[in-house]
């Protein structure tokens, strides 16, 4: 979940009073936002990723005012048409084909607000824009720019401008080699060319999606701002521009939309609100709540929607920056949130169904009863395992190709999925050599292996006795009694298991099916696990034994 930081002073200022942190935390819950800590006048929170309009103090304040009933209904901004246009080159078609540009004229900024806006831009870059892969965002001082804007592809050695925070002009090559942002995002452009935004005088705005120009950057004295977003999907980059506009217009200004041209195609910046509708019945069907029209209107306006009721249909005007609304259900959720989840009267569902426990669970519990009666302690190991433990360490290199390995393991300890249980049991015992013996343990768990290209999951039981002296007869007795209790008649047949002592391992057969093995573990294997006591193990394939 994104971590965001809100400015307490700005919150208090705009709601006109100080509220306790407890109260703040309560209202933050309406924003799916969780208070974590306070640093000076900043509140650090974790917020769900669906509401990027709330990632800024400005966006949060706008919504909070609604929840607190201080200001309701949809946000109104003045929109006009800019008299310049944006020309997009066809060459960018398969590279980074689109840009959306808008302006805000007449903003009043100061150091604090500028800092917050830049932080918001970075937060959007990281989360909503997926580290600039999906979209990049740029802000410029419009007064430094002239005429139409061009978005085109340029060779790196032809690009020359002074990047943000740098003291001198640099070529495209220098930018990707010598600047922090260049190194970080160079994989998002072609090896030798990048999309650039330039004005009619040839001044660079930016090399997208890497860095902007220092010469036209926004300062606290800027009153007219140009916003751009570049990417692959017009709708999406338009949503990014909308989010920036929502936050920046908190400081006033009128918004200019711009004509974009690619050859003979054209599109405009879109800041139109969207219309959705649903009925009170739809709302009741989902939530079980019975509200009056007036309540619905009140709640929707608190959630900063525009509302109208016509023929029992609730018509909702969704503000342009609400990028999370995909379906009326999303508005219905907002209504329920404003109503208050904790005020909802609880009502148990009436849904008569037949309970059913799986055969596997029943058998596991029966096995546990018996193994516990024998005095065995149940243990639990991860299915993620070290490949070496499953193979070399238990003399089973021959099953290497049957083991499913992880493409992106976090460490060697978890680089495959176990194909047998007993190596995990030995691994467990190796960590308990200083604990009292005898140690009698068992594990019930799933293993997965690859058989003729098929993924086979098996449920298994492994049991082990390890002590100064271990007694095969006794272990055989446990095994026999266990299976006898499930009406199985077991026979043993000679096996020469790679991890067993010679002539001291056997297959376990019932009804002419081999369902497992019992073996005294070869000291070579024991020593691989730093075990210095003899051990006898049996492992049963429960899937095969019980036909799960």
């Amino acid at each position: 979940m994104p971590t965001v930081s809100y400015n307490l002073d700005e919150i208090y200022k705009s709601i006109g009073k100080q509220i306790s942190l407890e109260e703040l935390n309560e209202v933050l819950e309406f924003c799916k936002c969780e208070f974590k800590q306070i640093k000076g006048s900043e509140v650090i929170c974790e917020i769900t990723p669906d509401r990027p309009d709330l990632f800024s103090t400005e966006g949060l304040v706008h919504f909070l005012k609604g929840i607190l009933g201080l200001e309701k209904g949809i946000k109104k901004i003045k929109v006009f048409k800019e008299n310049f246009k944006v020309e997009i080159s066809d060459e960018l078609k398969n590279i980074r084909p689109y840009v959306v540009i808008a302006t805000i004229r007449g903003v009043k900024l100061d150091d604090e607000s500028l800092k917050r806006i830049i932080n918001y831009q970075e937060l959007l870059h990281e989360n909503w824009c997926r580290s600039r892969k999906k979209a990049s965002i740029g802000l410029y001082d419009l007064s430094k720019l002239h005429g139409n804007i061009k978005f085109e592809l340029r060779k790196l050695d032809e690009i020359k401008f002074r990047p943000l925070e740098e003291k001198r002009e640099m070529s495209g090559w220098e930018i990707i080699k010598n600047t922090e942002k260049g190194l970080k995002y160079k994989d998002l452009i072609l090896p030798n060319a990048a999309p650039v935004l330039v004005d009619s005088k040839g001044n660079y705005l930016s090399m997208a999606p890497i860095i902007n120009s220092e010469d036209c950057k926004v300062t606290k004295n800027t009153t007219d701002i140009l916003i751009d977003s570049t990417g692959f999907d017009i709708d999406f980059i338009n949503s990014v521009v909308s989010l920036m506009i929502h936050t920046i217009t908190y400081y006033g200004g009128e918004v200019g939309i711009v004509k974009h041209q690619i050859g003979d195609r054209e599109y405009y910046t879109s800041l139109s609100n969207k219309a959705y509708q649903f009925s009170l019945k739809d709302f009741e069907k989902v939530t079980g709540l019975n509200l009056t029209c007036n309540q619905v209107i009140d709640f929707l306006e608190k959630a900063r929607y525009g509302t109208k009721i016509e023929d029992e249909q609730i018509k909702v005007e969704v503000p342009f920056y609400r990028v999370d609304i995909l379906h009326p259900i999303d508005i219905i959720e907002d209504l329920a949130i404003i109503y208050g989840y904790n005020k909802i009267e609880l009502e148990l569902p009436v849904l008569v169904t037949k309970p059913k426990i799986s055969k596997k669970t029943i058998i596991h519990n029966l096995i546990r009863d018996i193994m516990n009666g024998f005095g065995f302690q149940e243990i639990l190991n991860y299915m993620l395992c070290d490949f070496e433990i499953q193979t070399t360490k238990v003399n089973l290199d021959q099953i290497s190709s049957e083991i499913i390995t992880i493409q992106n393991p976090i460490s060697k300890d978890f680089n495959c999925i176990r194909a047998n249980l007993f190596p995990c049991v030995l691994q467990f015992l190796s960590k308990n050599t200083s604990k009292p013996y005898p140690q009698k343990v068992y594990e019930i768990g799933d293993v997965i292996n690859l058989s003729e290209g098929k993924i086979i999951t098996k449920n298994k039981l492994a049991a082990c006795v390890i002590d100064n002296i271990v007694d095969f007869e006794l272990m055989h007795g446990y095994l026999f009694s266990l299976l006898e209790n499930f009406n199985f008649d077991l026979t043993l047949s000679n096996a020469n298991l790679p991890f067993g002592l010679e002539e001291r391992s056997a297959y376990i057969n019932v009804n002419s099916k081999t369902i497992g093995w019992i073996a005294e573990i070869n000291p070579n294997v024991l020593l691989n696990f730093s075990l210095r006591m003899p051990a006898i193990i049996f492992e049963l394939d429960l899937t095969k034994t019980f036909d799960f």
Partner: protein
Amino acid sequence: MAEAKPKLTRLDLELLTFLLEHEMDVDELSRLANIPITTVFSKIEEFKQKGWISLREEHIYKVRLTEEGLNYAEQGLPESRLVNILKENKELKMDDLKRIFDEKTLKIALTNGFKRKLIIYQDGFLKLSNNIDLSLDALLKEIYEKREIELKSIEEEIKYLLHRNLIEIKPLKKIYVSLNSKLKHDLQTGNYTIVEEKSKLTSEDIISGKWKELKLKQYNLSALPPKIYFGRTHIYMKFLDEVRKILLEMGFEEEEGPYILPEFWNFDVLFVPQDHPARDMHATFRVNLSPVNLDGEIVKRVKEMHENGGIKDSIGWRYKWEKDLASRLILRTHTTTVSINYLYKNGNRIAKVFCISRNFRYDLPDATHSPEFYQCEGIMVGPNLTFKNLLAFFKDFSERLGIEKIKFRPTYFPFTEPSVEGIIYHKSLGWIEALPGGMFRPEILNAMKVEYPVLAWGIGIDRLAMAVLEIEDIRELFSQDISFLRNYKIYNAYSKL
């Protein structure tokens, strides 16, 4: 008058005879006599009261090698290996060494080589100093061969090895027993009488009637009994079974599903967009198997769901959905995949289904994260189900588990709307997020051809188990310590709910 002869039982005589030559510690006595330590202790107590023996305590340290220590005992300490190489080559450059040692070993060899003044660096070359002392290796070897040594005090060398984490030290108290001279003399000269005392009644005694005359030894009530390790279900499995029982009482049916599956069934059918961060290599484990071939109507429906919502009123995620990305095989990241697969197979049918099983996520293990963890998830499918019902279900469930207080908070999941997080109150831990849930989105129901509303819920079962079992580190749910599992007092946990 001659002093009374001491009266010994056969067991007394057997134990005391071991002490004739020299004093012996209680552990060794128990081992040599092959008599349980608790019996030996109670005998020793009795001997002391009779004035036959004296006791002496000694504090010692048991020293063992750690994993790293074991390695070095076998291969030699890194700095000693470096010294041996320098003995053959006289002087070497750093670059030469980089070819011989891996980076980590080289760092250890150099740091300790300089610290112990075994090597010097001069004019760009490493050379041996004239002070080569490899006694540490000998010490490691000695511990290695004996597996464990006992020391009366901790010398510098041992401290140094401990500091380097090559050994583990366990302080221990030893109790030595020695015979007093009077008894020793009596034993040597045969000046004692053996008393036939029985400690255990036998079946034969009862049948023969001999029990009437027998003098049975009085129980020693102050002796500690031997520790008995009983067999027991793993505490976490026991907890999961409690949860399972509650769900059965509520009318749920148990389901399961595969651990390895295409992303399609883990993400795409649940409306998780293909560029969602949960799907990348740093969030989800991929397996080294070729992608599966996805086909059929469901693939078409899911593609539409992503691209345009698939139903009137929804706009979907509006991007080009790619089958290839959905075909990659992964380890499932949540059991919601079992719920959605059930819906797909059963369609519009009234049902209450749950699954308790393991999931996998790319999380480095720490106190609150584990790459493998349990989840308990389920769905309720039926006419007229509402969000109200889901909240009531959470409340009912927690009450059945013994949790009295619960509150709800809005949250977000790509596949449910409305979504909720149920937060429960635990007496010692306070409020804990433990019950996420919501109603499957209309886009998903449409793709699954389900008309009834579906309440989907999960239980952060690891978290809940940690709260109930009072475990602070999630890794302890898969504890690798047999003593923890054997000694865990399960009643304490349940009595605090």
